[in-house]
């Protein structure tokens, strides 16, 4: 006679664990249609750092679960982050939807510059079919 209770316990525990961790993984990368570009194609992936998502309608979110924020709020958040890390060394990835207006991108980039960030990285989506050179 096999006792099933501990097995069921373990199964539910595993399910809860995976549900929680997968939510964390998806949290910072909003579902956007990034520009279809090859990017720099570095052999080793870099640490993402702070991710700023710009949706097609121009809404700015730092993570999926966050409410959209305006530039003033983003400025406050950036100052809070950079007061700990230091802006010059900060790694910032701007993930902007391809359909979003550059007005919003330019505002965010200018805000980063004013906060002391010297360079930024902009997210692209690698096309599925690479065109032959």
């Amino acid at each position, binding site marked *: 006679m096999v006792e099933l209770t501990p097995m069921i316990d373990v199964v539910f525990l595993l399910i809860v664990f995976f549900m929680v961790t997968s939510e964390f993984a998806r949290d910072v990368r909003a579902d956007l249609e990034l*520009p279809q570009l090859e990017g*720099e194609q570095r052999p080793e992936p870099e640490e993402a750092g702070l991710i700023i998502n710009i949706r097609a309608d121009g809404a700015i979110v730092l993570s999926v679960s966050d409410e959209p924020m305006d530039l003033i709020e983003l400025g406050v958040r950036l100052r809070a982050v950079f007061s700990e890390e230091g802006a010059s060394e900060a790694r910032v990835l701007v993930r902007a939807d391809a359909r979003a207006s550059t007005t919003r991108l*330019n505002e965010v980039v200018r805000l980063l510059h004013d906060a002391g960030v010297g360079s930024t990285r902009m997210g692209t989506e690698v096309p599925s079919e690479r065109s032959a050179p």
Partner: protein
Amino acid sequence: MRFQKRRSRVRVDRLTMNLASMIDVTFLLLVYFIVSTVMARPEDQLTSAIQTRDAESAGAEIDYQPQVVEVVAIDGVPFYVIGNRRLGDLAGLRRVLEDLPTELGVFIRVSADLPVDFALAAVQAARDAGFEQVTYVPQD
């Protein structure tokens, strides 16, 4: 004296394992992963320095004329302007950039009324042309 050899009756118990529960768990996990998997699209990035117009005009240290690509919308149509040349396609921009000296770097100025797609395409073209130093200058 005769000893009668006692025949030992060894009971052989077959150890059996019920695999049904394990298979249940395996399929349950498999179904969970299939349902919860989000196919993440491969992403990359384009690094560029940031410079605002104010910083650019105040930058007295620069003693050379920077190479500038302007991304503008003329009658709603995006164009890449470099020097006196106005280019409508990315391949043309890439060809022009390949003829320029890469060590000086390039500035990308993007007009505010275009989709992000065109801004990043210009940065990509500069990278493809071999420019290591690409500076993004946001326009008002």
